[in-house]
């Protein structure tokens, strides 16, 4: 990369089911919080990138009435209409270009405004799949899960163990939405069945939440903080539409991860990365993500869970924060992963801290994780 860019401040809301707060206030608080966390003022910021979607916010031009709240007034501003991790990616590009030095990134969704699963059905091919009427992100994930589980002989118990790990982890994270310290595999397997094998506890909850991040170029970062987290690598990729891709694997994530690893000089992610924060919208997806990230061979994701390797105290902890199963304020989810990964490196993950020098954060968007983005973060 042409310049080193660091994360120097962050903030997130207490993600919850139905936040008694307007979108504007929620955005204001995280933006203010991130600037405060970085110890800078709005005046120091060069560019502001937000992430939200018109359908999920139920407002066309979703950023229109939050520009003031986020602090974008008379700033070079833009909006990414997908996961906040892509907003961080755009902000990174803006700083790398040397046109801007400090960027504020914000992302939010209030799932309580309109059911995001309904909106997911609006992303389908309107000429064919949407006309059929039954496909949405959950039913598509169910087809994906069945295909993956049949192909690699993965049991429902193994998938449930992923959910248990993340939901128990979420209990230690005060910002998470679904915090279940005592949840068991049985409880997961007995939770409400939506589309077989997807159950209430093997899919992410519908959350309200927001988060914000401050990125700075090297010289500014060093002025701002003694504890910057450097972006060492990034990769992003969009897969083919669901009709024409292999559903049982995440090719686009694999490609995104390869790009990010290459940029960061990571040849063995298992050994070289200390903690992973990933956006698993469904429990089975986490296993597929392990494989796409190169943590194990194809179809062997279940073994990592069986051996407890991705537990908080395992060799490669995944989602010590509880991940997307712990809270899923759609557009904020990926950006929260970046924040959680950065917190681990900064040593600020109170209650779920893992000794970490290098971390991976993953964001996704679209049905069956069509679009993926991977960040590799590192400390000094």
């Amino acid at each position: 990369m042409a310049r080193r860019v660091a994360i120097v401040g962050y903030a997130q809301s207490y993600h919850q089911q139905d936040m008694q707060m307007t979108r504007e206030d929620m955005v204001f608080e995280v933006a203010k919080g991130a600037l405060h966390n970085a110890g800078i003022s709005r005046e120091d910021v060069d560019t502001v990138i937000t992430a939200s979607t018109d359908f999920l916010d139920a407002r066309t031009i979703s950023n229109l009435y939050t520009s003031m709240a986020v602090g974008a007034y008379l700033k070079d501003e833009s909006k990414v209409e997908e996961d906040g991790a892509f907003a961080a990616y755009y902000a990174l590009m803006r700083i790398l270009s040397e046109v801007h030095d400090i960027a504020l990134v914000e992302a939010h969704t209030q799932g309580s405004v309109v059911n995001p699963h309904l909106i997911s059905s609006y992303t389908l091919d309107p000429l064919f799949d949407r006309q059929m009427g039954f496909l949405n992100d959950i039913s598509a994930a169910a087809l994906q899960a069945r295909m993956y589980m049949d192909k690699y002989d993965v049991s429902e118990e193994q998938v449930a163990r992923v959910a248990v790990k993340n939901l128990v982890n979420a209990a230690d994270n005060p910002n998470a939405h679904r915090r279940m310290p005592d949840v068991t595999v049985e409880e997961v397997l007995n939770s409400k069945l939506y589309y077989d094998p997807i159950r209430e506890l093997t899919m992410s909850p519908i959350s309200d939440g927001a988060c914000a991040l401050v990125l700075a170029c090297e010289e500014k970062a060093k002025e701002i903080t003694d504890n910057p987290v450097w972006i060492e690598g990034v990769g992003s990729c969009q897969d083919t539409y669901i009709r024409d891709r292999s559903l049982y694997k995440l090719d686009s994530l694999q490609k995104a991860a390869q790009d990010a690893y290459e940029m960061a000089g990571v040849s063995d992610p298992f050994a070289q990365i200390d903690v992973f924060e990933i956006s698993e919208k469904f429990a089975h997806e986490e296993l597929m993500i392990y494989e796409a990230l190169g943590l194990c061979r194809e179809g062997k994701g279940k073994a990592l869970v069986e051996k407890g390797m991705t537990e908080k105290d395992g060799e490669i902890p995944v989602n010590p924060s509880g991940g997307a199963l712990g809270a899923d304020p759609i557009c904020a989810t990926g950006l929260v992963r970046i924040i959680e990964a950065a917190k681990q490196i900064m040593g600020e993950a109170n209650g779920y801290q893992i000794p970490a020098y290098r971390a991976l954060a993953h964001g996704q968007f679209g049905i069956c994780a069509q679009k993926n983005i991977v960040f590799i973060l590192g400390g000094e």
Partner: protein
Amino acid sequence: MRNVAIIGCGQTKHSGRRRDVNLAEMVGDAVWNALEDAQVSPQEVDAFTVGNMQGFGGVAQPEQWLGDWIGASGKPVLRITTGGSTGGSVAHGAYYAVASGLYDIAVATAWEKHSDSKEPGATTGLSHVALGNMLNLVNCGVGLKHLLSMFVVGAAAGVACYQAMYYMHRSGCRVEHLDMVAAKDRRNAAKNKYAHLQWPDCTPEDIAKTEWIAYPFRYGHVCPASDGASAMVLACEDIARKRCKKPAWIKGLAAYSDEENQIMSEGAGGIAILDASQQIGATMSAIKAYKMAGIKDPQKEIDLAEIYQPFPSQELLFAERLGLFDEGKAWQALEKGEMDINGRMPCDLSGGVNATNAIGSSALQRILECALQIMGKAEEHQVPKEVHNAVAHGWGGATNYITVTVLGDSPY
């Protein structure tokens, strides 16, 4: 800083009803035209930036479905949207993708297909902008008469009416000047084979014959709702010099937003602190973009402009904000023919948004048209002079979002 150039442009024919194609095919047409123009194969493209306003066409995140149609599967795709200025923001996204050094060739594409909505024109999308706010007003007992006065004057023109009145009051510009702008843009559009409202010999008198919407706007002043898509191929310096005889360099860009002139805030609270014709965001964006481009006197150094003007008053107003004319003097320049194709500062030779408005794509088209003029590929509406520098403008939100892009025939 890495230099970035536009090396290929593509667009579709715009019209009120592109029912011969579906959305994916329409966007595909524009992208394939751009790749062909740039002589770049789809395999060579490193990244895509895309955008439209999803409420207008009813498909959420349409790039996930139509990504395959534009050669984007297996590639990074970034969706950027900012209302009316979406196209400009998408182009800026592609600039930053290349300028960052992460990618060498990026495609920016933006589109709108209004006819996919059953409601006329852009009703669905536009009403969705403030629907929640309007309902809050209703719940707090807004008077029917008040709503009526908002709609009777607003109808299609909305806040632009007020903006025009503010501007006219300040500058002394009159309705006849709006007629002149509209006539010029429709004549210009007739020379642009991709434009929508084409009227070859349109005169200001023709426009003056059309009915009033609300003073100062007549039906003849207003932009159409178009179906169409546009795309550009951007590349880093090495590739641009190798592949393109005359690339259009992006020399400066900025997108500063000014919310204090918005008429309404979240939950229908007031703002409108400044009058909507002040447009500090545009002034600031222009200053920053010119500075980056090394342009000291835009009146002398800029050869032509593409201004985002759904309404003719905006062409005059923003031309001043972009520093192309003295404050309050654009209408006098118009009278002297300075904004015509042979004039000192030709504006919207493509017909601009006033003639073609596929909302998401409109601001990208402004940049694309400047690039065509620099590359000498504007065909019938090519300006008969050397174009060294051109400025493109985008405008959106509720009068608050701006994109300004300065292009040149050399990166320095």
